[in-house]
């Protein structure tokens, strides 16, 4: 039997983690002395190189959910986990081709800068800030709850303590070190995560004689053909397209990702950073999938799911099996660091939406000095951090998986369409942008609540369990009748045989046969009654009002459609006149900050 120390207080993990915290706090101290202006606080003084920002983008994007979650999904579901990892990557080329350079050339600190470039500042900033903050908060809750659960599993720390430690460190990085500290936390975390995952894959492949073929052969031997084939994850094509759209364009609408493009000096560095980020993230997902298959073979699904039903501990368990306690400790610390880095990036993005867009742009109508803006951003950081801690504790034990889907659906529907149209379309107007953002936001949220993901899995969870129990009972009764009928039919065959062989007993046998036939008919009747009852019970099963698991396809379409229609109805000459100026700056970067 495989022994694991996962779930117990692990001194090695804690030692590695303390080392990480001390290093990053040291960096924060160093960064604090360099963080004075808004440019320093929001954008690290635009001093980050393309390569560094590539790593930091990867650090922002590779969450613990993707590291532990995808490895877990692959180890428990096989090929279906691989489908997910592809979806998480494909938004990056879109960011590069459509967003990165214009975003860098046109904006200052937030993507709202770009949307508001030639439109009316206040309504646009209010709407964009709403989109950003909802995305940041939903993602933050998902990350915090995940953090509490994972840290409890890996370090044996109580849930609440884990959340408070995470929240406290996250506030410290952002509050004192701003974007400079946050960027370096991301870079260190990305390097550790990529290094740790690479080492784990090297050890895994070593156990299979450096042959992927051997790994797959063993996986197939243990779990059958189906393990290496697409299975039940994708059932309806439209559902698959909808989720695909949300993942792809949601990536291009995440405020903490978009914000990173302002940390580099120019558009050239911005596009370069996407190239590096895409490479790192793609490489990481390929590693993660290998880790998942490796864990399925070398650790085994039974043990993985015994520790955590979702399979989240597949990676750490594999590390323990291959590299012992030290490697497990290292990887657990890296997972903790990963969570910390992601929530820090989110908090900074939320704080900049609150201060730069909402406070300065809306409340102060664009007039505020640097000192004041940084001060408000710092207050917002503390506020958001405390919010994240409280919400994380409030959502303890809740199923928060839907929040990640919601985050991407909102980002793809509220943020992305307005951003894209403001860059590309001359006739885009203030009213068009504002209605597009609120429509995308509202449609995504409402449809997700009405979708099976929330309506069935969360709102009507008890009803579903009840109906399922009823159906199970009926199925059992029906199975019993089937057995009885089979038994009767055997007797009929036997009686038939007697009737054929012995003429004397023919009459008796025929009579018995008729009786038996009557019993079969009666039993069949009973069975049909049960089938009807099952149908009735099934009818009581709660149905989702909106059929798709992810609303992306409709909410995105609605946001684009409303944006276009309203813009056409409210022509804005001033905005069209400024488009020339926007275009020049977008393409050649003249006047870019």
């Amino acid at each position: 039997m495989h022994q694991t120390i996962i779930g117990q207080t692990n001194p090695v993990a804690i030692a590695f983690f303390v080392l990480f915290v001390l290093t990053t706090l040291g960096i924060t101290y160093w960064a604090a002395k360099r963080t004075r202006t808004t440019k320093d606080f929001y954008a690290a003084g635009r001093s980050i190189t393309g390569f560094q920002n590539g790593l930091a983008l990867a650090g922002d994007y590779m969450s613990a959910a993707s590291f532990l979650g995808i490895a877990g999904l692959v180890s428990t579901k096989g090929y279906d986990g691989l489908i997910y990892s592809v979806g998480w990557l494909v938004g990056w080329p879109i960011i590069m081709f459509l967003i990165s350079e214009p975003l860098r050339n046109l904006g200052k600190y937030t993507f709202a800068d770009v949307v508001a470039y030639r439109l009316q500042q206040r309504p646009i900033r209010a709407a964009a800030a709403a989109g950003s903050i909802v995305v940041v908060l939903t993602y933050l809750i998902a990350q915090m709850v995940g953090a509490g659960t994972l840290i409890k599993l890996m370090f044996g720390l109580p849930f609440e303590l884990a959340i408070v430690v995470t929240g406290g460190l996250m506030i410290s990085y952002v509050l004192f070190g701003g974007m400079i500290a946050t960027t370096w936390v991301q870079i260190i975390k990305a390097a550790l995560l990529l290094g740790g995952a690479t080492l784990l894959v090297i050890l895994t492949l070593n156990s299979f004689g450096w042959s992927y073929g051997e790994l797959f052969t063993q996986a197939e031997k243990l779990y059958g053909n189906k393990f290496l084939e697409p299975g039940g994850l994708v059932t309806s094509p439209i559902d698959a397209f909808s989720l695909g759209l949300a993942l792809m364009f949601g990536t291009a609408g995440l405020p903490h990702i978009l914000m990173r493009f302002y940390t580099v000096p120019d558009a050239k560095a911005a596009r370069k950073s996407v190239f590096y980020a895409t490479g790192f993230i793609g490489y990481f997902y390929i590693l993660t999938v290998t880790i998942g298959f490796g864990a399925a073979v070398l650790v085994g699904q039974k043990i993985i799911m015994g520790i955590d039903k979702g399979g989240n501990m597949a990676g750490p368990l594999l590390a323990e099996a291959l590299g012992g306690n030290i490697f497990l400790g290292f990887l657990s610390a890296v997972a903790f660091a990963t969570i910390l880095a992601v929530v820090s990036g989110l908090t900074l993005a939320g704080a900049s939406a609150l201060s730069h867009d909402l406070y300065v742009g809306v409340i102060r109508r664009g007039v505020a000095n640097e000192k004041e803006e940084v001060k408000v951003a710092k207050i917002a950081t503390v506020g958001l951090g405390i919010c994240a801690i409280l919400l994380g504790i409030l959502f303890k034990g809740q199923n928060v998986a839907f929040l990640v889907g919601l985050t991407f659906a909102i980002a793809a529907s509220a943020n992305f369409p307005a951003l894209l149209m403001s860059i590309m379309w001359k006739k885009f107007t203030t009213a068009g942008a504002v209605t597009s953002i609120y429509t995308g936001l509202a449609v995504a949220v409402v449809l997700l609540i009405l979708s099976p993901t929330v309506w069935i899995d969360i709102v009507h969870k008890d009803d579903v369990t009840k109906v399922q129990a009823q159906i199970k009972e009926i199925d059992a009764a029906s199975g019993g009748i089937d057995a009885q009928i089979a038994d009767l039919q055997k007797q009929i065959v036997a009686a038939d045989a007697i009737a054929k062989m012995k003429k004397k007993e023919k009459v008796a046998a025929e009579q018995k046969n008729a009786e038996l036939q009557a019993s079969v008919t009666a039993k069949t009747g009973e069975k049909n009654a049960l089938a009807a009852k099952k149908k009735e019970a099934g009818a009581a099963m709660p149905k989702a009002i909106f059929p798709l698991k992810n609303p992306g396809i409709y909410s995105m379409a609605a946001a684009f459609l409303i944006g276009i229609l309203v813009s056409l109805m409210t022509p804005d000459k001033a905005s069209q006149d400024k488009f020339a100026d926007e275009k020049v700056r977008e393409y050649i970067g003249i006047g870019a900050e």
Partner: protein
Amino acid sequence: MSKLKKEDILDDPDFKDLSKQKNTISTILTILELVIYFGFIALIAYNKPYLAQKLSEGGSATKGIPIAVGTIILSWVLTGIYIWWANKKYDVLVKKVKDKIGG
């Protein structure tokens, strides 16, 4: 050579060329990426048996595995193509236009 005014840049043939080229390459690469990813999704949705085929006789790996990994790698290659084009052509054109306006 007389300096161009910022307002006149839009009508400058070099700027027109630059924005047209950039739009064309961005559009082509975006469509390619969409075709690659949604092609993969379409295979999962409509042709699971194809993805379930074995890569080689006697082997275990299915065609779906290199196709999924290929989608990831190809996405990255597309970003590489854009970088290559931008470094080679776009930056040169930007410099040319910038020189004209003395910026």
